[in-house]
């Protein structure tokens, strides 16, 4: 889905209309930031909450006259701290990656398609299949089991093993 149609006001160099500037900044950054947040939360309700909180916190900064690169990096940093709050509160942990400064420096376009080949490559084929069916295609456990020709109980165990294996082999550090 694309960002909804909008017509950000044209900026006259040297005479920016400060009062509406943040809206065009918002329209430009909301989708990339949302995709970034979604890839750290994996579900819509959390992705919407974290994105909202991030923009509300960052709003004063959006008004000021800073470069798009700085805004992006500021939004990423803010989002990471909100994500860390969510994870700490819900799962009692802060993931290493949230401290990774490289994320903030990555270009916006890099998040357009989430590249998961680094996660899947190198996994045994049945591990790879179960993850593709469950996550990429959205199959239920039952459908996954049928597609793979294994029992439901097997598919359940397989998805856990596959995920844990992926976590030890680069899943935490995906660079596109």
């Amino acid at each position, binding site marked *: 889905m694309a960002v909804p149609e909008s017509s950000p006001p044209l900026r006259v160099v040297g005479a920016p209309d400060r009062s509406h500037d943040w809206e065009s900044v918002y329209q430009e950054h909301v989708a990339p930031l949302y995709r970034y947040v979604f890839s750290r939360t994996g579900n819509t309700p959390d992705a919407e*909450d974290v994105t909202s909180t991030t923009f509300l916190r960052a709003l004063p900064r959006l008004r000021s006259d800073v470069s798009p690169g700085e805004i992006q990096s500021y939004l990423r940093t803010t989002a990471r701290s909100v994500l860390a709050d969510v994870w700490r509160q819900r799962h009692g942990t802060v993931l290493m990656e949230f401290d990774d400064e490289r994320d903030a420096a990555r270009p916006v376009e890099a998040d357009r398609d*989430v590249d998961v080949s680094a996660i899947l490559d190198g996994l045994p084929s049945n591990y790879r299949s179960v993850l593709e069916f469950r996550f990429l295609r959205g199959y239920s456990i039952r459908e996954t089991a049928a597609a793979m020709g294994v029992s439901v109980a097997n598919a359940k165990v397989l998805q*856990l093993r596959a995920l844990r294996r*992926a976590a030890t082999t680069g899943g935490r550090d995906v660079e596109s």
Partner: protein
Amino acid sequence: MSKADRRLTRFIKALTEDRRPRRSPADDDAAAMQVAARLRAAHPGGADPSPAFVDRLARRLREAEGQETARADAGIHRRGFLVGGAATVAASIAAGVGLERLHEVLTEPQSGAGPIQPYISQWTAVATLEDVKPGKIKQFSAGGVQGVVFTLDGEVRGLSAVCTHQGCTLVPEPGQSRLVCPCHPMSFNLEGAANPGDYRLNPLPTIQTRVNAGSVEVLVPAWT
């Protein structure tokens, strides 16, 4: 299956059903959970914001921005009033300001209306769609917020149910189109505005609402 297995299974299930995972310790599975989120984001079309969300957030930001501007415009007056409320009253009397003007000073609406914006917030289900059928008003208490949800102009809305006069909890009127204060003869309409009367009261703060899987959810503080 071990306890950790069951927890990770539930986590996966929540993501594949696009639900918020429930609270549970990650222990050794933090990295596996993170991989699950990454994979889920690669689900076709799964990681893009809905246009409705983008619009809703733009509206919230506009409201927050509006309050900010209003505060800046009224800066000096506001600070003077809030910091020196009693002093202002004393000074007004000393200066021989008429009682009518004094009444105005005391009851002048201040900012503070607009949506409740908790610092750390979460969407919490407080009603079903059945509860907010046109003409009905549902009271709730969640995350330290007392409020009501209802449908107005085809839209589910939320309002604080705390009177902006002395903090009494407002009650929906039997006719269900007003919120009535039990303490004084005052009421608010469903836009949150105080109905004209002897007092000039602040409007009720609004509460962000959304409909999610048949439930009405409100944005309230994440109460841990």
